[in-house]
């Protein structure tokens, strides 16, 4: 898991800390954190990330715009993107799936739920 580089986009500092805890617990150690879409794009310049975890409702550039942008690029057209959402945000999720998001996870979630979600893309239970 050490070799999986994760981009994690979330505007709330509290939430960032909580979800970072989960990611660490699952075993991800290489995580780029960003506050919103624009910040994310800036921070992954020159990097190659293997998994993108993004909140949807954010200032500046929201999840929708970020995913749309990433899916247009050659580099990130197939990278797994998991959306972080909350209950009641049905329309957002449907929209996200149309845009090419590969999965989503509903807040609040435990590290185990997140792990299950991400296990779709990587073999997280090996070893």
């Amino acid at each position, binding site marked *: 898991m050490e070799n999986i580089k994760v981009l994690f986009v979330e*505007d*709330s*500092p*509290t*939430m960032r*800390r*909580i979800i970072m*805890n989960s990611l660490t617990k699952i075993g991800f150690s290489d995580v780029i954190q960003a*506050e919103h879409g*624009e*910040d994310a794009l*800036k921070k992954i310049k020159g990097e190659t990330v293997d998994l993108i975890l993004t909140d949807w*409702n*954010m*200032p*500046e*550039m*929201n999840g*929708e*715009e970020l995913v749309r942008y990433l899916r247009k690029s050659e580099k990130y057209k197939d990278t797994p993107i998991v959306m972080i959402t*909350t*209950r*009641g945000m*049905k329309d957002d*999720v*449907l*929209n996200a*799936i*149309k*845009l090419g998001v*590969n*999965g*989503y*996870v*509903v*807040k*609040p979630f435990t590290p185990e*739920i997140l792990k299950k*979600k991400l296990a779709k893309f990587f073999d997280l239970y090996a070893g």
Partner: protein
Amino acid sequence: MGLFDQMAGMEDILNDFVVETTELIEQLDEDLLTLESGEVSEDMVNRIFRSFHTIKGTSGFLNFEACNQLAHSAENILNLIRTKELEPNSKMMDVLLETVDWFKGFVGDIAERVEKTYDISELLDAIELNSKQPDSAKKVDQRSERSKLKQSTVEVPRELVQEFISESNEILETLDNDLLVLELEADDEEYVNSLFRAFHTLKGNSSLMGLESMSDVAHKSEDLLGLLREKKITPSSDIVDVLLSSVDFMRVIVSEVDSDEFNDHDPSDLVNKLLQFVGKSPGNGNGNGNGKTHPSAEDKEIKKSPVSGSASVKKIESTIRVDVERLEKLMNQAGELVLEKNRLIQISQLMKQKFSGEKEISDLDSLNNSLGNVTTLIQESVMQMRMLPISKVFRKFPRMVRDLGKENKKEVELVIKGEDTELDRSVIECIGDPLVHLLRNAVDHGLEDTETRLKLGKQRKGVIHLSACQKGNYIIIELADDGSGIDPEIIARKAVEKGIITEEAQRTMSRKDIINLIFKPGFSTAKVITDVSGRGVGMDVVHSNIAKLNGSVEIKSEIGRGTTFIIKIPLTLTIQTGMVVRVWNEIYIVPLQNILETVKLQENQIEKIRGCEIMKYRDFVLPIVRMDELYNIPHSDEDSDQFIIIVANEESKLGLVVSELIGQEETVVKPMGEVLGKVPGIAGATIRGDGRISLIVDTSELVEGAGLKEVA
């Protein structure tokens, strides 16, 4: 085990929560008021939505259930406003503001780690009530539609009910998390099977509990899943949508089933929707037979959101949070650095005298210069770090003024300018209370009620202008109301009545000095003591708080026109450049920013008028204060040459007589300590290069004092 015991080790997260939520609350207060005033912009509604959304998200993680529920309900309203299904109105804002107030209290409890049980049912009902669209033709939310008929539920043992609830919740949770990828996973048989099983289980369980509506919904959903499983229909977002509605519907039932007054919900709308799909099989209009799940026609439906960054190009924040204590430490260390630098310069001077001409001495000199530059830069950077925009303080006021206005039945408009003006952290902390007092006074005493205003031919709404700006080394805060103004005669009479001044003294006082009496302790002219303006301690506090900051307050008032308070505060409190002066054998520091110029004293130019010494200076009369007399400094014999330092505040000047001008020095202002408190005429103390302590002269106080003496 209490909530906070479970959270052991989560201190950082809790602190984050408190800080972030507090910021969100402040923003919400401000934004909701703007929304109420009718300025509905998409950006703003989105921001309010996001604020509630964030609170909902974080509180959900932290198991703050009440907070989570309230945020969720508030978010719902905002979502309806966002989608233009709901029009914001003042009642709705009242409820939302009340919700924000609740958050305030809650965050306070969390900050102090107080664990409470909260009853939010009333507030939730109020929110619910306000989220009903007035236009019933608009689409009805199935969840909130309560059916009137109370269905007979079979008597079921309690443990079974609990078991049902927990199992159903578990299933519903996974359904919520899994249903949306249905479109993507439709080819995965095992996946569709598991969804089918989930609905099947829910159907069985609810039927067992006698929950017919739920069983009905689960049944029809199961049918739909069956068709999907047999590939008779292809999943579309509409299908996912309706299945999610089923999940929502069932969740509501499960959450209410245990309450005493359980009302079953009417499932007919939802069942009809489900039947639409089941009846229409195979294919649902856009099915193309090969099981592909992304009809291209739908892609066009994706809502286009405006590209961000065009209207509001804000600079990207790349900030980190730093503990105030650390910053405070850094500040003190920067201060110490200045002191050490001063010492080094002094020692270098001595070395120069001893070894003048040596190469090392000039090296030392240039080193001292560059060290001085670096020190200054460090100092400035640290100061910069401590600066906060005054909006931190101002943003609370619109809400406060709104509430005060409502309480007093006065219509008040608060106009704020210059909220970007930056102030030192310590100043920000002290300036809040005085401004609150002044604002309360303005609403309570300053502004007339609507009736009176109309009679006087003024506009209905009273207006309070609050502004901040930087002028040189000072921050000027002005608070002006267009109310009745202060009548000096009433003030004078009251002051005499209350024994604050004698009648005789009153006759010789200027209009300005009389108005300034309102700052005296124990002075209050309110006819009735109200909740709002307190008991005559307010203005006193205003004056002393601002004096603590080495600032001054000036009042300009015109009867019938209104009152303006002008507060002037030095930009920084801690490091100042000072003029080092000698008064006989003692050394004092005079803040350089207050010095206009220095002149040589010529005793024959000094005249005495009514016991006060004055000197003609340029075109006007300058009061003279001899520092040795002021501070009771014993004379040594040899000196005779003396200087006058002319210091000034914005309106008066004063000449200070000293023995010698020594030079300039960076001084780190240290307070006099708890025991002494504020010493008249002294702003603080500093440690000089030679390690000795010198007192810093409080020039603004002296100038003010001299002004009073002049007329006395």
